[in-house]
Structure formats: structure tokens, C-alpha cells
């Protein structure tokens, strides 16, 4: 199967627009001296802009035309992403960068995914959802498939290729323009006529390359291709056609990026755990880090977290470009749910999703667990921990339930002594040594507090805890 993206540059530019935001966009070729329009979207086309027109002429026709230069690097990156998506349907994918096309071997996938037609429809639908328009064609040999893609044909595998393409005009072939012109001058108009020619004569006139190509086209000669391996990371960016400074309007292009990421993850059977979003504006860029508790590829979950994060984001300048990078794709496991809901127990999946949401909005360190540390000094004998670390805590029932974050100085005359003293003298190894006598005291209102008298480093009376 061959997949061609004839208008990749335009697709990349219009991907970020919601359907309501139509504006005239044209892609121009920035290499040549005379800048010409390469492609334009329907809105611009209705106004009269055509391919091949000079940019100045196009601007004259439509004053608020957005001219976007063609970016080959972006197109290559997009092709790489498309190849990763197609990896789901076939394990042998080849990229043809010169023509923005992909070749897939789907003979082996037909059993799983269905007939060629079904695969074609699936792929077209999936890619259209992401904003890419493609032409698909199938045939038994790679070259014939490319030809079929140009014309939208599906040549059944058992048939003779020569018969099916006989009626097509000559410029469907992938030959040099000079060779095509020569064949045209000789009077040939259809591929079938060229295929019937004697090979020796053809090779003498036009060179062995043409004969080689025709052999590979019809399947007389094998055409081995090198397979392509998908990368272990994901990187995608989108230029926004209209600068936007409202975080709600950013949701649509970000959703497109996340959809693409999730499709890629499904194709590779991987999960993502750390997502790095970047919103680029004039003065710089804002980075948004999103972390999941477990590698996941659920689009709804990521969008939910993203919405929470965007809620609290303040944009300082209008955003021009959004990008998403996932540096590592991790192996993904589907969690199995038990058939019978467990009434008394808690569900760890629910805890995880709540944790993700809380951390997305409140910050990474807002949600912590507690643990005890073996140390005699009360302020060092506890610590916070990440919730998935093990928690061990020694039990000290005679300690106060509340601890003040800093010991507060106090005047001990105001308090009534209830119990004490308890000497704690320790900590010489890390420089925070202390010698303290702890007492349980009560104040006038009846609160029971934990006070200590410190001998060193700072002598005096302090309150440290509350028995409440």
C-alpha cells in the first residue's frame, strides 16, 4: 500500500485551526527568487489565489492572506509521525521523503485488520481526524502501489499489474521529465503501449534505468526495500495560524497534539509518563510539564489534566506555536479490573487518578504522605514522602498529635506544669545537637501543650507541640 500526502505543507498549517476559524492561508516557496504560491486552502482559493501565482499578486487579491513559507524540516518530521501511526497497521514501513509518501506492506496485516478496503478506510479516517489528507492506493509491487496512490486505485494482488495500469496516461509513471518527454515525442500516450515495447530497444534509447523501473513496476524484478524503525520518542509542534492569548482557545490545537500522541502510543503499544508542552510566544516560551502516575495513553485523562493545568495558567503574550515532546516512550500495561466490585476495599486506580488531578492543579509537592524517621529530636523524627514510597513509622503514643513547624518561644510562668521532665540530648553528628527537657504544660484556656527548656544551642523555653 502506498500513502501519499499531496498537500502536506497546507495540512500542517491548517491542523491547528478549529473548523470555525477559517482564514485564507497560502504556502509559498521561499527558495526561488520569484516567490510563488505552492498551495492554498479553499477560502483563499475562492478568492482567486492559484498555485503558481506570484505572492505579490496573491496578496493583491486577498489582503489578509497568511503566507507561510514551506518548511521541509517540518514536513519530514510530519512524515516520520505519520510513519509511526502507520506502524500500527504494518510492521514494514518505508518513508519516501522526496515525495511525502509512505509505503506499507499490508499483506500480512489483512488477516488482522480486514480487507484492503477496510484498512484504507480506517487509515484515511484516522489521519483525517488528525488533519492530514492522504491518497491511498494498493498494488502487489511498491512502484505500482505508488502509481495506484496517485490515481486512487486498488489493484488486487493476484491480477496482472500491466493489465490494470495499461490505460493510464504516461505522466503517472515515476520517470525523469526528460524521459517522459522523449516517450511523448515518440508517440506513446499510455503506459500499456510502453510496457509492450521490446526491452533491448528501450534500454538503448532511454537507458537501463527505465527498463529497470518498468520491471519493478510489473513485478518481473523483485524490489526489496529497507524497513524503517520508529523512534522511541515523540515530538510534534504546531504553528498557530492565528495568535491567541486565551488559554481556552489553545485547547483545540493541544487536543490535536494529544490525539496524535495517543495514536502513536497505541500504534507502538507504549505509554507516556512525562509530557512536556511548550507554548511559544514572542518573548520566549512557557513550559508545562505534565506527569502521570503510571505510563498511560488515554486521551481523556491527559486532556483532563491539561485542562486543569491551563485553568491556572496566565499567558503573558499571544502564543504562536505549541509543541509537545515526550522524551521516552515506556512499555504500557493494561490494568485488569476485577469482575466483582470490591465494596470494602479502596480502588488503587481511583487513588491514582485523584492524585494526578491534584498534582496537576496544586503542584507536584502539594500532595504528600507522612512517614516517621528514627531520630530522638522531634522536629527531625518525621518527614513527608512520595505516596508510592513505603511508609514506616514507629509508634510513640505519648507524643503530641500536632507539632509546630518552628518551636515558639514562650514565657513558662504562664503555664501550669502537668508532667515532665523528659531529657532529650542528641544530634551531635549533624551539627544540630540539642539538649532539652520536655514538659507537658497547660495554659489558661485549658490547652495542653508540649514545651521544652533548651540548654543549647539557644537557651530558653519553647513550645513545640499541642495535644489536641
Amino acid at each position, binding site marked *: 500500500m502506498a500513502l501519499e500526502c499531496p498537500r502536506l505543507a497546507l495540512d500542517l498549517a491548517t491542523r491547528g485551526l478549529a473548523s470555525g476559524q477559517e482564514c485564507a492561508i497560502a504556502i509559498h516557496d521561499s527558495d526561488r527568487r520569484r516567490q510563488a504560491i505552492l498551495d492554498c486552502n479553499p477560502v483563499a482559493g475562492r478568492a482567486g489565489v492559484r498555485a503558481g501565482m506570484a505572492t505579490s499578486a496573491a496578496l493583491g487579491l486577498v489582503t489578509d492572506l497568511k503566507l507561510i513559507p514551506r518548511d521541509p524540516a517540518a514536513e519530514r518530521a510530519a512524515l516520520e509521525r505519520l510513519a509511526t501511526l502507520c506502524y500500527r497497521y504494518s510492521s514494514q514501513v518505508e518513508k519516501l521523503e522526496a515525495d511525502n509518501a509512505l509505503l506499507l506492506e499490508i499483506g500480512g496485516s489483512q488477516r488482522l485488520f480486514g480487507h484492503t478496503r477496510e484498512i484504507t478506510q480506517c487509515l484515511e479516517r484516522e489521519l483525517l481526524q488528525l488533519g492530514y489528507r492522504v491518497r491511498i492506493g494498493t498494488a502487489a509491487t511498491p512502484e505500482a502501489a505508488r502509481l495506484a496512490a496517485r490515481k486512487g486505485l486498488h489493484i488486487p494482488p493476484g491480477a496482472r499489474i500491466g493489465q490494470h495500469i495499461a490505460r493510464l496516461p504516461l505522466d503517472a509513471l515515476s520517470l525523469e521529465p526528460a524521459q517522459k518527454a522523449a516517450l511523448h515525442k515518440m508517440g506513446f500516450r499510455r503506459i500499456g503501449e510502453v510496457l509492450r515495447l521490446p526491452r533491448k530497444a528501450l534500454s538503448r534509447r532511454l537507458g537501463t534505468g527505465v527498463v529497470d523501473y518498468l520491471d519493478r513496476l510489473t513485478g518481473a524484478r523483485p524490489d526489496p526495500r529497507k524497513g524503517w524503525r520508529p523512534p522511541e520518542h515523540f515530538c510534534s509542534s504546531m504553528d498557530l495560524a492565528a495568535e491567541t492569548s486565551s488559554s481556552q482557545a489553545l485547547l483545540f490545537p493541544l487536543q490535536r497534539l494529544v490525539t496524535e500522541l495517543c495514536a502513536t502510543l497505541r500504534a507502538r503499544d507504549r505509554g507516556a509518563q512525562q509530557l512536556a508542552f511548550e507554548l511559544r510566544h514572542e518573548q520566549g516560551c512557557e513550559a508545562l510539564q505534565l506527569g502521570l502516575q503510571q505510563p498511560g495513553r488515554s486521551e481523556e485523562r491527559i486532556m483532563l489534566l491539561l485542562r486543569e493545568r491551563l485553568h491556572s495558567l496566565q499567558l503573558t503574550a499571544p502564543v504562536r506555536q505549541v509543541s509537545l515532546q515526550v522524551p521516552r516512550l515506556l512499555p504500557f500495561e493494561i490494568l485488569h479490573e476485577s469482575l466483582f466490585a470490591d465494596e*470494602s*476495599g*479502596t*480502588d488503587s486506580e*481511583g*487513588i491514582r*487518578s*485523584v492524585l494526578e*488531578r*491534584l498534582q496537576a*492543579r*496544586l503542584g507536584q509537592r*502539594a*500532595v*504528600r*504522605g*507522612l*512517614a*516517621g524517621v528514627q531520630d530522638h529530636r522531634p522536629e527531625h*523524627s*518525621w518527614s*513527608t514522602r512520595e*505516596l508510592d514510597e*513505603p*511508609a*514506616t*513509622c*514507629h*509508634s*510513640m*503514643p*505519648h*507524643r*503530641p*498529635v*500536632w*507539632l*509546630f513547624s518552628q518551636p515558639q518561644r514562650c514565657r*513558662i*510562668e504562664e*503555664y*501550669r*506544669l*502537668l*508532667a*515532665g*521532665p*523528659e*531529657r532529650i540530648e542528641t544530634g551531635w553528628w549533624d551539627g544540630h545537637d540539642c539538649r532539652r527537657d*520536655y514538659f*507537658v504544660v497547660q495554659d489558661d*484556656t*485549658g*490547652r495542653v*501543650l508540649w514545651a521544652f*527548656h533548651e540548654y543549647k544551642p539557644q537557651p530558653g523555653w519553647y513550645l513545640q*507541640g*499541642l*495535644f*489536641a
Partner: protein
Amino acid sequence: MPRPGEHLARTLPGIWQGRSLRRNLATLPTGHAALDRQLPGHGWPLGAISELLTETTGHGEFSLLMPALAELSARGQWVVLVDPPWIPYPPAMSGYGISMERVMLIRTRTPEESLWACEQVLRDIRGGAVLAWHDDPGFTRLRRLQLAARSALKTGFLFRPHTMAHQASPAALRLQLSADPPGTRIRVLKCQGQRAAESIFIRHSPHLPGKTRPVADPEQDSAKGLSRPQSAPMETHQPYAH
């Protein structure tokens, strides 16, 4: 003779008769017998929010909940603390029987975020308890929290200053706590069923340090001036020379 409506009150969960305490509520035993007797269902209502209005914080309102939290912890359920006023000390909580494996501490930056975090935790973690300290959530917000607690069968405890007692609140149980040394005095402001007329006294005893001797005569010590509580145990072991 069975009173009219008694049969309905017994069978349908949403109906109760004003004169009697509800018996068929899902509750969590408080661990204090005097309190259990006066509460409908003999315990903290499960799947609902109980408001604890305190005059001043630090009078035993937290340790009041400890037996119930220990019970939840023993069942393997989560205890979540949202913006407590001070640091909850893990060894002391362990001493009451709460396992640190299932304790979550959430610190937020604004009261709005605090309420949002409460709602998320109430809604999505089944079972367990949420303890929140918030002055004035507002009636509608509190109603949402109550509904969230009911859907997930969670027990919510909200600590508020007692000045909010006059405000209407949709909480299932409202208690007013005041200090009454050596314990706490509890008045039931609102509950589902007949309210207890008199207030309940719960004596709370802070677990005193075991190894030391309690000071025999508090008046004598205060007369001496507590700035120098030198007594024999301290002078004997002095590993460092001053």
C-alpha cells in the same frame, strides 16, 4: 399500638420521625461511649459530612476523632488531611493506631483550592475519611461536598470556628466543641433525629510520657518559678561539660 408512619420510617432510609433517634444509619463508632449514646446511629454518619465547630483550636478536637480514624485505617482505607493548621505528627498518630501507609497530606495555596481538593478527594476515593479545616465554605459548596461524600461513602469532618454556628449548613451532623478542662464539652447542634438536650463531656487524657515522674505539686512549682526546674534526674547525667 404502632404509630402511623413508623413502618415507613423503619423501612425507607430517607424518612425518620422527629421524636426518635434514627437507628438504621450507616455509622462509624466514635470510640467514646458517652458520645455514641447521644448520636443517631451511635456513631459518626458514614457518607456524610460532620461539622465540628470549635471555639479555639487545640482543645482535643483532633484526638476526638482518633479512635474512628484508627478503625478506618485498620480497614485499609485512606485518611486525608486537607490544610491542617499544624503538622500532624506521625509517631503520635501511629500511637493511636493509624497506619501511615494510608495517610495523605494536602497543602493548598488558596481557600478555593482547598475546597476543590476536598471535593476531588471526597468524590473519587471510596471509603475513608477526609478532614478539612476551612472557615466558611458557603452553603452551596458544602452541599456539593455532602453529595460527593454520600456518593463515595466517605466520612468528611470539617473544622470551623464556632462563630459560624448561626449559619445554616447542610451537614448531617453539627457539633459544637468547647474546652472544659480536663476534657471537652460537646453540644449537638444538629443531627438527624432528636437532639440530645444536654451537652456531653468527653474527658481526654493526653498520653503522658511514661518514663518520667509526673510533677507532684503544680502550685509549689509555680511558686518556685518554673524558670529553673532543676531536679535530681537532670543533674546526674551530664555527658557534656558545660
